[in-house]
């Protein structure tokens, strides 16, 4: 069973969201998602300053097996992207919840985060798949 940290929030499309405490939120894909995709070979990220809306496809995680869209879990402005993924996309495999983060968003409306799944809710959504 994959690791699902309790301090994070989740989208049913397998993104995680971490509250950085300053109005920004870090986004990546879950351990479960990277397990399904296998070895990552390219990650296409949004640009800093992009305005994104919840549900938009804003990034692509491409593995040996398939290309998979990554959706914005919340709306806001992109304030940082993980440039290390350019040369070492395998960070998504080795540390999905840490060094494999993808981008950071300044939220338009922090209450959107409250609508995301908690760890238990995400576990249930995986079990239903």
């Amino acid at each position: 069973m994959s690791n699902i940290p309790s301090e994070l929030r989740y989208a049913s499309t397998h993104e995680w969201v971490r509250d950085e405490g300053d109005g920004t939120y870090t986004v990546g894909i879950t351990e479960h998602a990277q397990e399904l995709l296998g070895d990552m070979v390219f990650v296409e990220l949004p640009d800093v300053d992009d305005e994104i809306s919840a549900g938009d496809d804003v990034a692509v995680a491409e593995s040996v097996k398939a290309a998979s869209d990554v959706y914005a879990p919340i709306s806001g402005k992109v304030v940082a992207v993980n440039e290390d993924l350019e040369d070492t996309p395998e960070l998504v495999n080795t540390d999905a919840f840490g060094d494999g983060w993808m981008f950071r968003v300044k939220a338009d409306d922090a209450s959107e985060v409250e609508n995301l799944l908690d760890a238990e809710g995400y576990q249930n959504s995986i079990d239903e798949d």
Partner: protein
Amino acid sequence: MSNKTVLHPKHIEAGAKMVDFHGWEMPINYGSQIEEHHAVRKDVGMFDVSHMTIVDVQGPQAQAYLRKLLANDVAKLTAKGKALYSGMLNEEGGVVDDLIVYHFDQTNYRLVVNSATREKDMNWLNGVASGFDVIITERPEFAMIAVQGPNAKEKAATLFSDAQKEAVADMKPFFGVQAEDLFIATTGYTGEAGYEIMVPNDAAADFWQRLLDAGVVPCGLGARDTLRLEAGMNLYGQDMDETISPLAANMGWTITWEPVDRDFMGRSALETQKAEGTHKLVGLVMTDKGVLRSGQVVKVAEGEGVITSGTFSPTLGHSIAMARIPATAQTTAEVEMRKKWVTVNIVKPSFVRNGKSVL
């Protein structure tokens, strides 16, 4: 109910991720498909290929039968143990399967055919055999382990007896020899040196463990696919099938046209296809981000084609593919990827040999 090879418990023990492969529960990887790929290119890896079907063909008319069955000509085989790659065609000139045949003498041959097509192949082999004095025998009592990579022969030899070492000492590529309990062949599906070793089922798990102990890295079907694609080797069911001419599958070199009176299965259809012209299987190279995938549409001035196999090449660091397209004078093609048209280079369908790019 899915089939399991005798090495199945060893895969589970190693934490392999198992998948269904045409009715066989096989390892797709043991952690990282890319690391397994690099192990084979740079050192040594091993694959459980026990699911493949081993068939012995024996009898006074074994050679005559195989000269009817196969598009390549076993009469070219004179040295004991020499192997030949061939397509087995239907009357319409489509590929029933591709296989390797080992020649021992004119009355004694061994075939290795695909597992995905086992039942169809056995029916086909037996069907063509009517009227020939041959005996066709499946050999399910053997497991098969492919040990591949620049250090494969050296590592495998640490398990061999003195007699086995002597048997393989001066063996050239594409030969096979029975040495005590092992059938050892200098064949493979990776573009690297190495052996494919048939070992009795009851000795297979121990043999696998001793290879592990010698430092050989277990590799799954994922790495097997990226390795064979880099080497430009076809995968049956993907790059060709019963509806595809070998001329459209980069298998023209496996057809022996001379002597003209050898009436092998599919010959007359093949002659018509050759006269009329067919699509060609080419290599595609894309150095931009992204991965070419099977099923994507390919356009050249002469018309449209399709990617039959596509992947990220771990050795080259970018995407490669095989595509079946109209014969073209162009050196580039357009591929539709995720709703965009991308320009890629057309090359011969061979990308990596012995650890190095051949582009």
